[in-house]
């Protein structure tokens, strides 16, 4: 309880401080276009709910913090997270995006070419990229290494594995056009959990104690089918630092036909974060649903504003959180009157990637692109000179040795010459234990194409024993490839009456892109449980080999014969003498003839065998008698 009161006191203090400060920024002009440079640190929180065609619900939390370029208070910040500001300042970051994702974005069902899904679809695991404001390549690499360690500490994740030069790459234009100051790395196997969410929430001024973030009930959000938590920051001299913290979850309502916010999150929204400039909840209904809106959907709860975007792709219902309090919590409820199968806007081509071949020696990576023409008929022009451009960006770890010359491209079931299709290509082959292979490729396909496939052959490499991870037998991951379509822009323009950083980000020229699946390559793994056997076995073989080799090379047979002859004249050693005496006695052979007839006379005569068997029998019998008595 004490901590609670303390916190509220602190909040109150901060809030009053916020109110006392003179307000320079003009609130009247609600435009993105004006981009009046805020002189003050600002924070806004938004939540966008969107029913998906398969009766799931997408909840997209969006928190924006801005810090003006030159803070009047020196190094101190009021709302803006200090750790991030220090990070930006120290590593001279121009742009950075870090995402933690669990599950796969279903491009077929949840949409692929609207801005929300273009932004939401992230590869499983951790993805980090950053643009630096540093001139030389060496310095950028060093900074990147430091950055990964800082972020690793900040977000309780093993981002520091991206430090090694084998795990990050520097794409030039396949991911984002840049001047060689971009670094990109992905960790597909990184598990995402609350320990990553907590530090992320700490960057918010109200954490999850008040406002929209208070909806983040851990069991509810981690039960979702898709979970992607991101941090995106931009910094320049004009706007200062802007961080966008987003969290997208796809939830499955218990009752498919009707859901409410309270049912989804098991918490109710009772008010805004006192420090937020704006706090809004949106409900977006996709155009394909809204055309029959009246029949299918029923909304409970009165919206503050209802608008459509310019092309009527979707309808937005806006709810201002300020109006709600503990006595009257905001609870949007959606009832489906009729169950209906609809699909969202598809990407022009559906990309999927898979492995071909089997065995531990070699294989191929195939990327298959299939036209989704049925759904986006309007985008196509079937004339002969129409081409669709596709950019493929793929990073492959070094132990998967891709032979880039084996690139084969099939268009509509016929093999095509690469130079007819490839417009631009940039290949950075992998170097063993130094750098991964990077492939950036811009392809041109005729618009009427139905399907295309690319294959690349690879050999599977061998790792050193200490390079294997603890679960080596699972196989090794090839991170997701990024397939983007530069000719297709996903943007939605909403009327200026809505002022929202979230919706404003929709206005930008976002290229339609989709990530492919992560691949699992089984490599040869040594049997870790028997290193001892392996060592002894190899040592024995080597010893035998070297022993006999050295023996053969070193020996001088004639010398030895002479030596042996001279030795024969001398007395043999004590033990051989004894043995020979005993054996001679046993066999009853005279000493002189024994030496000559050693080869012809078997040592194990029938008598000896008989005696040995007799003694053994006596021993067994004795044992038997003693035991039984």
């Amino acid at each position: 309880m004490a901590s609670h009161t303390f916190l509220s006191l602190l909040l109150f203090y901060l809030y009053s401080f916020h109110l006392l400060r003179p307000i320079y920024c003009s609130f009247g002009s609600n435009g993105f276009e004006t981009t009046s440079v805020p002189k003050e640190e600002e924070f806004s929180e938004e939540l966008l709910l969107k029913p998906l065609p398969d009766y799931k619900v997408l909840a997209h939390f969006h928190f924006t913090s801005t810090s003006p370029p030159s803070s009047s208070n020196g190094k101190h910040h009021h709302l803006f997270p200090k750790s991030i500001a220090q990070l930006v300042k120290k590593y001279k970051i121009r742009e950075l995006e870090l995402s933690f994702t669990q599950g796969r974005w279903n491009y077929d069902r949840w949409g692929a070419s609207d801005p929300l899904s273009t932004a939401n679809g992230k590869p499983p695991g951790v993805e980090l990229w950053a643009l630096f404001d540093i001139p030389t390549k060496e310095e950028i690499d060093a900074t990147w290494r430091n950055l990964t360690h800082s972020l690793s500490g900040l977000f309780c994740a093993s981002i520091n594995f991206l430090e090694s030069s084998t795990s990050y790459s520097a794409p030039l234009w396949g991911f984002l056009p840049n001047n060689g100051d971009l670094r990109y790395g992905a960790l597909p196997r990184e598990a995402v959990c609350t320990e990553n969410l907590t530090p992320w929430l700490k960057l918010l001024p109200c954490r999850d104690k008040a406002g929209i973030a208070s909806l983040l009930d851990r069991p509810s959000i981690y039960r979702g089918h898709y979970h992607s938590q991101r941090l995106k920051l931009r910094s320049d001299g004009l706007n200062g630092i802007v961080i966008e913290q987003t969290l997208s979850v796809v939830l499955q309502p218990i009752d498919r036909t009707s859901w409410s916010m309270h049912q989804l999150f098991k918490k109710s929204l009772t008010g805004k974060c006192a420090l937020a400039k704006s706090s809004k909840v949106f409900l977006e209904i996709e155009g394909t649903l809204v055309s029959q809106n009246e029949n299918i959907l029923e909304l409970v709860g009165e919206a503050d504003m209802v608008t459509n975007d310019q092309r009527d792709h979707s309808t937005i219902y806006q709810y201002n959180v300020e109006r709600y309090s503990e006595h009257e919590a905001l609870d949007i409820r959606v009832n489906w009157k009729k169950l209906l199968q609809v699909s969202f806007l598809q990407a022009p081509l559906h990309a999927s990637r898979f492995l071909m071949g089997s065995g531990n020696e070699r294989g191929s990576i195939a990327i298959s692109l299939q036209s989704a023409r049925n759904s986006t008929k309007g985008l196509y022009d079937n004339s002969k000179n129409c081409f669709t451009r596709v950019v493929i960006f793929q990073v492959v770890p070094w132990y998967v040795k891709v032979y880039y010359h084996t690139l084969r491209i099939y268009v509509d079931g016929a093999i095509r010459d690469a130079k007819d299709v490839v417009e631009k290509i940039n290949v950075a082959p992998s170097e063993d234990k130094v750098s991964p292979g990077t492939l950036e490729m811009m392809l041109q396909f005729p618009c009427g194409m139905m399907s295309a496939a690319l294959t690349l052959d690879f050999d599977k490499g061998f790792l050193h024993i200490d390079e294997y991870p603890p679960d080596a037998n699972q196989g090794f991951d090839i991170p997701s490839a990024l397939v983007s379509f530069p000719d297709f822009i996903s943007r939605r323009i909403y009327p200026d009456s809505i002022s929202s950083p979230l919706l404003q980000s929709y206005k930008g020229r976002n290229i339609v892109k989709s990530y492919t699946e992560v691949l699992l390559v089984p490599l040869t793994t040594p049997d870790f449980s028997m290193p001892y056997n392996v060592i002894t076995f190899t040592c024995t073989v080597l010893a035998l080999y070297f022993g006999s080799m050295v023996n053969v090379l070193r020996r001088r047979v004639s010398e030895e014969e002479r030596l042996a002859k001279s030795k024969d004249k001398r007395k043999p050693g004590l033990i051989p003498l004894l043995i020979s005496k005993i054996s001679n006695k046993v066999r009853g052979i005279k000493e002189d003839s024994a030496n000559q007839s050693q080869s012809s006379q078997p040592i194990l005569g029938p008598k000896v065998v008989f005696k040995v068997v007799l003694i053994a029998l006596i021993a067994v019998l004795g044992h038997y008698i003693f035991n039984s008595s």
Partner: protein
Amino acid sequence: MEVAEVEAEVEKKATATRSRLIVRLAALLVSHSTLVSVVCCLAGLIALLVLPLLAKNTYISENALLPGSANPVLSYQHVTQANNLIMDIMSIADDKQAPDIEIPKLIAKYMEILGAETYHHKFSQPQNQFHPLYFFSSSPNSPPTLANLSYGTSTVGIIRAPRGDGKEAIVLVSPYNTQNAGGIDASASASSIGLAFSVFSLLSRATWLAKDIIWVASDSRFGDHTSVSAWLNDYHNPNFIGDASSTRIFKRAGTMACGIVFKVVEKERREKYEDRDVVTLYAEASNGQMPNLDLLNVVHYLAVHRQGIRVRIGMFGGLVKSHLVRVLGEVMQQVGRFARSLNPDWRFEMPSSEYVEGTATLASSIYSQALGVPTGPHGAFRDYQVDAVTLELSPRFSLKNEHTRLAFLLKGGRLIEGTVRSVNNLLEKFHQSFFLYFLTAPNKFVSVGVYMIPFAFLVAPLPIIAASLFNLTSNRNPWRWLHTAKPLLITHTWSVVVTLLPFYISKISDLPSTHCMLTWAGGSLMALVILYIVFGSPYSKHVEWRLLKAVMIASVSIGLCLMSIINFATAQIGALFVVPMCLFALPIRVKTNNSLIRSMVMTCNLVMAVLGFPVTAVALMQGVIKGFGTVSILEFWDSMKFLWGWNSATYLYLVLVHLPCWLLFLHILFHPCR
């Protein structure tokens, strides 16, 4: 100084006054070669017979599997849904309106209701052609010719794991036959689909899935194996050239972690009354490959300890009734009892009935591995390094009764649910437990370290005998074996010709198998005669029979050792035939002092000359295992066709190792002994 020369000299001096211990030991062994070989062979035989006693109980080696740690949640609701599907399939089958089109559609419709991604996979019957060069590679990637042939349609549904990353998948296969949809086992066939559907509907709502689930309702009109192998081939080696529509719809779900094939078989007349439902496990894949033992253990554990289903594996019923085996069992029991009374710690006593059953099961296990032919559709998975097993479920009561059918589906479904859940728990692929083993009971196995001993005993005397024969020859030139290399070379060239002949014979279409057989035999004989005309008689002046035997033994031991790496079981059975042939070979005209021994050896030789011929050897083997009534020598062509149809290395062994050995044996037998 030439190394070879030095070595030869060293060898010569080996038995001289002072030589190294290892050389002296070798010399000792060589000088007692007869004793050593007799002892080793007997030891090998005894070790083989003792194998059922040495079998250990299976245990689950991979801790991550956690079988049975979660309670099964498959409920009557799922099973009733599945029952609706079964009723629908049965009604389509009764209507006889193109069931081969309607049933896949119906299954796909049911899958889509569950929210699965579905597609139909079309495949045609592969040409059963002999590809001598494709023996060890995977099946050749030939473009499908669907145009003029009839084709089957498998229905495939994929459930994406809600929070999974889609890197791995578990494959469920349920074969059904649309051609025979209205036939006798129609209800059983439909029940396999129903069983798969009940599990699939449960998994489509499961939140704990980490791996995607693929359900292949495979059309088994060309056999269970064909459809699965065609689908797997398209999964791993898609063909992008040509009609792209089939590759367009084909969906994948990552690397396969495991394949579970299950089918319901209703036995019309049971031999004996069953008090429980029975599941029969089939695990042998091509060329004696086995799935990881852990997979079998999980199924066995869940079936026996959770669902109360009896588990069976293949067993030769004939051996259980055989008197010889029973007597052996009694002897083993007495020996075990005696050993135990000597020392209470020696606990290898086994009741004779258990021994008999263990032997029958072991024989079946060795035989199925030695044949190199998969025992079910799971074999197709093993070709892509995926562990898979076939479960054949047979219910206690008739499936025509709806009530018993529901109960049976619930039980079988829970077994499969548990198995899927265990595999789903796996972080790594199967690697902890054994891959090389024989089974002597569903829960007992003989591991590689134990079953290698009999083979090692059988093969060990071969080099010793070869060395002693080499020493006994009158010629003292160290390169004297080169003369005998010529007949050896001729024999092996001939065997290669014999191997390849069927390829050309099978090109001539529509020959009855007896004609093919005769053509093959005639062609081989002709090839042999031509080879002798070209290269001259094998009995030249320098070819001593001892040297010929030594060379034959050397080549055979190399062949056996190579085969033991490729398919151990084949080498094991082959050694039983070949090793006596190698040891006993003696020319008819050779003069010896002891006429009694000579006549005995000669009788043995003549018997072996007949039995060692691959045709009779195969017939004998099949006779021992399946009963002599069914065996005919003329079926040899068919059984060989069967072997190469499955790319079995056993065929190569028979023709490239066994046949030359037999021919050389004959050469020795009829050696002039000048």
